[in-house]
């Protein structure tokens, strides 16, 4: 039985709180920003690039409209594939890493998300039990730990622990993604309106019925839309993994950058834009249709 707030209780809650309110938060942000600049020893002078930096910048930007269509490297091995094929391969690898990681992440995220939602446990064990409390706490802890280490750090950690392999990269991408998905899934399920669930309960439904037909369908569109957004994040992270030697777009971007082949850099950047922005527009269209 729920405890509704009554009139007698509310005046105590409305007591003015000196730390409440947006002004304090904004002041704290400004103070934080000033402290940050001091801590990082930032000076405005450093924002003026050196002559060398300026040259690099101009040379880089001047190639924006003339991306390379063939390799600009001074020495190209005779058996090397054409540059554009390399770019395409890298783009496909980027997508493949992200897709494989998302496959794992969605499944793991669903399992962990259910375990971390209060609605699920109140449906499975309506009267509460020690097992429920332990599993709930455990799921929340695991999710927090998965989320709090960045993809790239997971990649380093897995490589150090198991040695470099493609699967290590996929797992590195999927672990924090699964954690974040689980957190959002559990919040969406817990926050979705309960009216339909109560109606099914009043019709004699069991806890499982109520969860599956009352709660889950209401949260599902938001869950799908959010998963698509995370896919986009995974694509970006997958591209960056190339900086650590995996064959995604980042690898070639890094190599072309350090050998100052800016035409190649732009070709690769446009490929990256095509992949990420294309997916962004697609997921935006799906979100509009599902949520309206």
């Amino acid at each position, binding site marked *: 039985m729920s405890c509704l707030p*009554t009139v007698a209780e509310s005046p105590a809650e409305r007591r003015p709180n000196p730390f409440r309110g947006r002004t304090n938060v904004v002041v704290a942000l400004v103070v934080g920003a000033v402290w940050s600049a001091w801590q990082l020893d930032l000076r405005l002078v450093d924002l003026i690039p050196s002559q060398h930096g300026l040259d690099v910048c101009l040379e880089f930007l001047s190639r924006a409209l003339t991306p390379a269509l063939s390799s600009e490297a001074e020495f190209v091995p005779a058996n090397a594939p054409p540059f554009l094929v390399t770019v395409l391969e890298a783009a496909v690898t980027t997508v493949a890493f992200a897709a494989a990681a998302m496959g794992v992440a969605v499944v793991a995220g669903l399992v962990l998300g259910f375990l971390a939602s209060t609605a699920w446990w109140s449906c499975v064990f309506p009267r509460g039990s020690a097992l429920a409390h332990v599993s709930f706490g455990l799921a929340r802890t695991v999710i927090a730990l998965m989320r709090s280490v960045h993809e790239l750090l997971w990649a380093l950690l897995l490589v150090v622990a198991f040695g470099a392999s493609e699967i290590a990269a996929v797992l590195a991408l999927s672990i924090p993604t699964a954690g974040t998905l689980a957190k959002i899934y559990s919040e969406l399920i817990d926050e979705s309106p309960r009216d339909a669930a109560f*109606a099914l309960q009043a019709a004699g439904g069991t806890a499982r019925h109520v969860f*599956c037909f009352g709660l889950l369908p209401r949260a599902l569109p938001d869950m799908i839309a959010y998963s698509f957004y995370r896919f986009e994040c995974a694509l970006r992270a997958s591209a960056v993994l190339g900086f650590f030697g995996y064959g995604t777009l980042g690898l070639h971007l890094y190599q072309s950058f350090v050998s100052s082949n800016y035409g190649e850099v732009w070709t690769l950047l446009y490929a990256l834009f095509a992949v990420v922005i294309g997916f962004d527009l697609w997921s935006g269209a799906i979100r509009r249709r599902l949520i309206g």
Partner: protein
Amino acid sequence: MGRGLRFVAEQLSVRFCALEALSGVDLTIDGGERVAFVGPSGAGKTTLLRALGASLMPSSGRVEVGGVDVGRCGVKEGRQLRASIGFVPQDHALVPNVRVVQNVVAGRVGTRSFLGSVRDYAWPSRATLDEVHSLLDRVGIEDKLFERTDRLSGGQRQRVAIARALYQRPLAILADEPVASVDPSRARAVLELLTGISREGGLTLCASLHNVDYAREFFDRVVGLRAGKVVFDSRTDELDDARLGKLYALSADELLADGC
């Protein structure tokens, strides 16, 4: 009369923390009777319906539905009891982003196994579809069978909620403010529908209403509630205006406390 459920409340009280929603209600509703609960907001109409619908345990006193004591029955008995009562909630309580047929099919969760319900929900059989279609035909929106529920108007959603309650094959229908969100002409149609269904099947019908005129027009009996107590309980033809005036004359305190 008929096969409708008989409801008995004896000294029924329901408390939410410090708030006493119902205090000492005595009420007997015979099978097949059509009763309207009227009274100002916060009088306890919804609470009384939920207590009669066996989805709220009384704090004290007892509720008997079809001869079964709600406070004493086990989990399984409680489910069976609730499955035999069609509850139409005030805000329709439908899932907006699925098809109408899925919302209606979800009504029979009380008597179907879990896997059976999943099958009905995701891959309904031809017979199920026909049954849902005939129910939607009865409530007047047969062409909306496969429509997405959030594309429907408020009145149409109300009808879907009624169809969902009917799909339970109930012995009684409890409707909470069934005409709160529709305009007067549609309100009449909804009430005609509900009373018609009750008459055809001999179902007991209890509905909470704000509008006393509708109560007079469509129901056999009117129960006036105020501050959790039954103020009057009489047959519609014996109802006089003096009693109604008393019911709605709010004291200043009550006006301020409204909605809390």
